[in-house]
């Protein structure tokens, strides 16, 4: 019997391979993120001071929405082609497999957002030190969002037109991340102490990492009944 | 009497709060009773229909 770690690595590898075969799934959230970030200056006006003010919040909201957009497909194709059944019935612990899938989701969706965010931040006139803080908050925040979103995706996997429902479930839960993420960047921009926010986001990510896979596994079993 | 109801100048705020609370509490209470009655009736109708078929 292959071990747990092997199963975890294999699951992540398979998901990454699948993303490579369908690069659109990877690019869509990224393009969405950039487009939402473009909407705000167009809607509000090109005033530099205002943009600097709203920059952290806008980037965070756009990242949150982009993550949410990508979550719907996390378990959907597995459900449709029967591979979810096979995963549920394998001799490996389901939380580990779910965690592997979540990690792949983060690598394909969350990490690119963290890498692209500086481009948006520069157009919002944020200084370099603030951009570093923003990347840190997004790094920690997107990990939690992937984990939290996986629970929502697992709960709504068999439901017809589950996309709107998924947002309804995950958005209120993700508000602490938005608050701490965006406000920490704003504090950094105002030259204030921002370490509390980073600690909170890190603690949240650790908590989500330990608890969320079990909720995801339970939800997957229920959804596939 | 009027003075009592006016609550300083805050009458409209205070009374709308209490009125709204009474309305909502009444609404849930009424809905709960109505749902129970409907459920009882539905079960009875279904059972009667099943008996009729027998």
């Amino acid at each position: 019997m292959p071990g747990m770690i092997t199963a975890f690595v294999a699951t992540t590898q398979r998901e990454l391979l699948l993303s490579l075969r369908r690069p659109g799934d990877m690019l869509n959230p990224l393009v969405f993120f950039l487009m939402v970030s473009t909407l705000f200056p167009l809607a509000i006006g090109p005033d530099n001071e205002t943009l600097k003010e709203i920059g952290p919040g806008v980037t965070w909201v756009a990242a949150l929405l982009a993550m949410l957009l990508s979550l719907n497909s996390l378990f959907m194709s597995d459900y449709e082609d029967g591979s979810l059944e096979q995963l549920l019935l394998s001799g490996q612990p389901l939380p580990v497999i779910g965690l592997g899938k979540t990690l792949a989701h983060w690598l394909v969706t969350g990490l690119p957002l963290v890498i692209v965010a500086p481009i948006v931040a520069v157009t919002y006139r944020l200084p370099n030190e603030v951009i570093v803080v923003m990347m840190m908050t997004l790094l920690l925040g997107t990990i939690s969002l992937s984990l939290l979103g996986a629970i929502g995706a697992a709960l709504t996997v068999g439901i017809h037109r589950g996309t709107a429902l998924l947002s309804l479930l995950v958005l209120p839960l993700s508000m602490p991340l938005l608050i701490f993420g965006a406000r920490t960047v704003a504090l950094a921009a105002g030259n204030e102490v921002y370490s509390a926010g980073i600690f909170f986001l890190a603690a949240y990510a650790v908590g989500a990492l330990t608890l969320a896979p079990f909720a995801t596994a339970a939800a997957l079993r229920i959804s596939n009944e | 009497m009027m003075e009592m109801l006016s609550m300083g100048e805050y009458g409209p705020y205070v009374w709308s709060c209490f009125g709204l609370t009474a309305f909502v509490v009444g609404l849930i209470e009424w809905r709960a009773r109505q749902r129970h009655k409907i459920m009882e009736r539905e079960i009875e109708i279904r059972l009667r229909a099943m008996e009729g078929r027998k």
Partner: protein
Amino acid sequence: MNHKLEAADLTLFRGERCLFAGIGFALAHGAVLALKGANGSGKTSLLRALAGLIDLEEGTIKWDGRPVLEDPQQFRSQFVWYGHRTGFKQDLTPLENLKFDAMLRPQRDASPRDVLCSVGLEKQMELPMRQLSAGQQRRAALARMLIADVPLWLMDEPFTNLDVAGREFVEATLGTHLTRGGMAIIATHQALSLSVPVDELVIQ
């Protein structure tokens, strides 16, 4: 090791309807059980309940004398599932799919390539699944059964989408599995022609 599967008092409701109540069976090594019944009678549900995909209202399932609910994960590593859908990713090749599957349960000493050749997919094993015909996809799913080193096969309507040759192939494969001391539970509305006697459980 000679394994044994016992089930007693199985009862399942699906929403409004009672699908079955109080049914049971015992399955020893080398034996096969066919679940029979009209469409929608609940044979697929019974199979899913045995696999632990759905919760039974009542009843116990024992593997080697131990209730499976005590350690469901251990029981899951004792069987392999053959469902309506292949459970393979359409964007991956049969070979890639099979290699991933190898991580999920104990495997025989056979290379995925050889097994895919033995099910007649030597030319298609490097093509994405979506380019394979329905029958070829079923054969790929059979390769999963063959490579798994587990005693129990759970098969849900294994003959759909198969021509006569494919059907005979499934039966031959099953025969090999049973002579090796394996056991199988098959939900099907067709008669099985196997070299061993087939127990039948009819669900009304």
